[in-house]
């Protein structure tokens, strides 16, 4: 009887919650929505090639995609950057100019500032190459729940680098919004970036 007496309240709470959820003006991403799952954008890194210190404040008001990779990467890194370049190509210039793709090298020993700058410039002017020493890199990757590791070098000094394959995308206020996977279709990426770029 007690449970039955409380039922109208429970129904009311559930309906209110559903109504609030339905009326929410949060955009519906095609990629995985990770709003609130990661801390806000915050870092101090060096921008290639001039090794100028940059922080999140340098990208204030911009939609920022954060990716950790390395220039010798044969697959995930060029594929991911190419997808972002493709998605940005489909977005009008006045919107796309507010987008920055930050490519943070997790192989600073091989990725010289010049090499990194040349690599990212191949994908477009909105791509930024960032570097740091190992300790700073560990701090930044820890903050964004990602990691990297280097394999043993072969006889030619080549080694494999394990790193995360996803890109974290932050809105104009620096809050994380969605996670772009390496296998995401370019159309979906374009749709989700447009939602964020159109947001005030």
């Amino acid at each position, binding site marked *: 009887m007690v449970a039955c007496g409380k039922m109208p309240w429970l129904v009311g709470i559930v309906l209110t919650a559903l109504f609030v959820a339905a009326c929410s003006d949060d955009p519906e991403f095609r990629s*995985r929505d*990770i709003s*609130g*799952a*990661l801390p806000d954008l915050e870092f101090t890194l060096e921008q290639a090639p001039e090794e100028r210190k940059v922080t999140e404040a340098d990208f204030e008001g911009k939609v920022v995609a954060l990716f*950790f990779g390395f220039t010798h990467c044969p697959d995930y890194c060029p594929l991911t950057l190419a997808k972002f370049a493709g998605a940005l190509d489909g977005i009008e210039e006045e919107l796309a100019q507010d987008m920055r793709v930050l490519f943070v090298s997790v192989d600073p020993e091989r990725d010289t500032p010049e090499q990194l700058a040349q690599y990212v410039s191949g994908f477009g002017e909105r791509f930024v190459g960032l570097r740091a020493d*190992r*300790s700073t890199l*560990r701090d930044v*990757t*820890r903050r964004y*729940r*990602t*990691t*990297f*590791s*280097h*394999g043993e070098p072969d006889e030619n000094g080549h080694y*494999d*680098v*394990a*790193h*995360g*394959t*996803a890109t974290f995308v932050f809105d104009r206020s620096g809050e994380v919004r969605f*996670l772009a*996977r390496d296998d995401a279709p370019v159309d979906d990426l374009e749709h989700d970036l447009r939602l964020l770029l159109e947001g005030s």
Partner: protein
Amino acid sequence: MDTTLDWFLPYYFYPEVVLLTIGGLYLYTFGLIRQHQAGERVRIWPAISFYSGVALIYVMMHTGMDYLAQYLFLGHRFQHLIIHHHAPLLLVLGGMGRVFPWALPRWFLMEVRAWRRMAVVRAAWRILGNPLVAGLLFVGLIFIWMTPDAHFEVMLNLDTYRVMNISMVFTGVLFWSVMLNPRGRYRGGYSFGLRLLLLWFVMLPQMFLGAYVSLVEHEIYDVYDVCGRAFPISAMTDQRIGGLLTWIPAAEMMAVVALLVIRLWMREENECAPGAAVRHA
């Protein structure tokens, strides 16, 4: 994890782990000291068991092991094997409930007794102390946290990751406490036979889950790809070893606890069963 020191330091600082470790060590150590001062016998093996349990939980949650647990599926499964199965069992075998009260002030113990008389607390105690509820929580949480979607969210969000780990420790302690409660049917507790049956029911789903994860031909837990792995090993190797850790050592633990339950059962039969006094005579 670039220097040796990194492996000894916490990857993230968790205040709850530090508080529980210091609190547990304080209560147990002072409890033993007061017991000794009161002329009570201080038992060495339970003490070793308790301190080993605390050390294991600390190492798994507050050193480089936590880094491995976050960036390798097999590391995660190993961490949960220890903080859900092994370490809680060691804590329970350490007899916390017997030793802690010695370290607490009399007024606090009186307060606790008063709380325990409250209807709400008594009801909660009865529900959580029910073997079926404790067993469901124990095995249910493994399934909840290992559901692929939930696992993805939990591993990405540090707050939920912390909730998951602490929940594993608490449900581990709860389940083993209920299973190894020395009061059986003759002393107003739950039957030992029922507990053995429950152990079997708790073991089976874990074995099936572990077997499925280790034998399936596709990647289930892709969050480790998304976030990167601590070592350059393939996703399938990582998943297979993680599945085996869920399957075999977890099942072995159930067998070990079953032996402990049988020991308690035989002891109670010898002491309380009808005719026990005659046999002793």
